[in-house]
């Protein structure tokens, strides 16, 4: 290719228009599209700002001033906003953490099976089933947890409390006034463990579906590199698939965690929660979650009480935000090694 060709001097004003370099007419399609997309982007800011303004304007008074007579009775009884809100925040995080502990290994395992072990036909059928599970409404999960899972597990909880009570989480014994120990198991299995199980079940499909997509994107090149070094299938997964998929798995887990933190209906139906902090899983004393508490109490509250509930909502919002930022931090800290370059 020669670079010495002189540039064309005339700009085709006289000859046919298709060779002209002059902008012919305004491109309405372009303008419209760029307008719509910038508008949509702007909309996110507007909505976020609106939500944040609403939350803070309603929540700040509730967080800072003394509870008055129109506030929630429980807040007054506990002696202040934070004595009430922090246990709820604990219950929210605790139930979500338990759910994650159960759901993540299960979901990643299923995803690996579907992407790297199952025959293609089986994988496809399983994929549909997982999608189906994701489509079950949370109120149905709640009903099922309440009416089927909890009573079914109750005998198991009993056994767990009798044989494994040395493990603090499973200990549900309480001393009576005369010093005798009595079991204080939740009625009908409606305890934190059941609620966490149902939560786990609800977030498993989304983590599975996303992880599977990520696993499938592992370049064949890297898998072959590993196999050619004499890796077994599992070693190949450990060496090539999992490290490559790590950021994706973290993102998937965060989505699941977000859902678990904010899940309202299932927890509200299964768990007769109270405002308290305990790690024990089997007792009738269970911490409530923010979302479930709001749903259970909002209809009857008024005035200052509403603002207190909104303040709790703001705390939930902040928890979710922090969780997401931590996840982003984890992903960014190993960006160089992500394989994106």
């Amino acid at each position: 290719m020669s670079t010495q060709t002189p540039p064309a001097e005339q700009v085709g004003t006289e000859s046919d228009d298709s060779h002209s370099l002059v902008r012919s007419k305004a491109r309405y399609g372009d303008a419209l599209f760029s307008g719509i997309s910038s508008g949509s982007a702007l909309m996110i800011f507007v909505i976020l700002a609106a939500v944040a303004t609403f939350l803070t304007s309603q929540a700040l008074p509730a967080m800072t001033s003394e509870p008055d007579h129109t506030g929630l009775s429980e807040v007054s009884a506990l002696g202040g906003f934070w004595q009430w809100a922090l246990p709820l925040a604990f219950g929210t995080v605790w139930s979500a953490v338990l759910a994650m502990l159960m759901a993540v290994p299960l979901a990643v395992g299923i995803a690996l099976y579907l992407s790297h072990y199952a025959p293609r036909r089986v994988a496809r059928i399983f994929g549909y089933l997982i999608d189906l599970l994701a489509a079950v409404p949370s109120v149905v999960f709640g009903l099922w947890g309440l009416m089927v899972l909890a009573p079914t597990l109750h005998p198991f909880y009993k056994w767990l409390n009798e044989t494994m009570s040395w493990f603090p989480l499973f200990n549900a014994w309480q001393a009576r006034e005369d010093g005798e120990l009595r079991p204080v198991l939740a009625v009908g299995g409606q305890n934190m463990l059941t609620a966490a199980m149902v939560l786990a079940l609800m977030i498993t499909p989304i983590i599975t579906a996303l992880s599977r997509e990520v696993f499938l994107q592992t370049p064949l090149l890297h898998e072959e590199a590993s196999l050619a070094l004499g890796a077994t299938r599992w070693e190949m997964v450990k060496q090539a698939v999992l490290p490559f998929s790590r950021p994706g798995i973290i993102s998937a887990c965060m989505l699941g965690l977000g859902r678990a933190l904010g899940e309202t209906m299932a927890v509200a139906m299964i768990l007769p929660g109270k405002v308290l902090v305990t790690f024990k899983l089997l007792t009738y004393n269970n911490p409530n979650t923010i979302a479930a508490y709001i749903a259970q109490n909002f209809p009857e509250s008024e005035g200052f009480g509403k603002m207190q509930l909104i303040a709790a909502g703001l705390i939930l919002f902040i928890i979710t935000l922090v969780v997401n930022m931590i996840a982003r931090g984890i992903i960014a800290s190993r960006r160089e090694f992500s394989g994106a370059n």
Partner: protein
Amino acid sequence: MAKRIEIKDLDIYYGKFHAVRGVNLTIEPRAVTAFIGSSGCGKSTVLRSINRMHEVIEGAYVDGQVLLDGVDLYGKDVDPVRVRRQVGMVFQRPNPFPTMSIRENVLAGVRLNNARMPRSEQDELVEKSLRGANLWNEVKDRLDRPGSGLSGGQQQRLCIARAIAISPDVILMDEPCSALDPISTLAIEDLIKELKDQYTVVIVTHNMQQAARVSDTTAFFNLKKQGEPGELIEVGPTEKIFHNPDQQATEDYITGRFG
């Protein structure tokens, strides 16, 4: 530790597709053997059958024997994983593990053997392998940086270092330079000539000059016609194949009067 490879009456299938027919070939140790031929003639498939990497594709199987110093790689009790630890492979596109540092990449194969290796021994192995791949001087100051930050040619040499770190008997190379610039290609070719002092090297290449430059023996593969399985047409000393081949098809291909 270089070993002789004997391929006997080898047919390779992918499910119902008959990819390669009736290959008989002896690959000498401490020498470079080049596989040449047009695309789709089965040379890569034959190469991959030497460490059973073609089995990555579902439904692949072979009929015939591939003997590594007399041991059939397709024997009843043979574990493909073990085969691949003795027969290393370098691929068309450089594929260092992106999540690992240069050092970890070199050690990747050793780690698989679950060998608990003292740090000092690891350091030694990393240096020896990287020196063996003519890469040491370029990366010795940044062993903990990601392998994916290197240039294409350096990445490919890193992959070679990774392959020789587990001291294989054979190194297979599937068009190792096709994604590289001429300077990097030259570096790899020099390296190939050095590798044959210790290993049996088999290389697939589309680059005729490359085959002529680096190999001692050349094997020419071709299809009788489209849709037929690939076959080994002729094998001999590189000198002879390039200057005085026995088969007309070989001469046509070498001189570019092909197809």
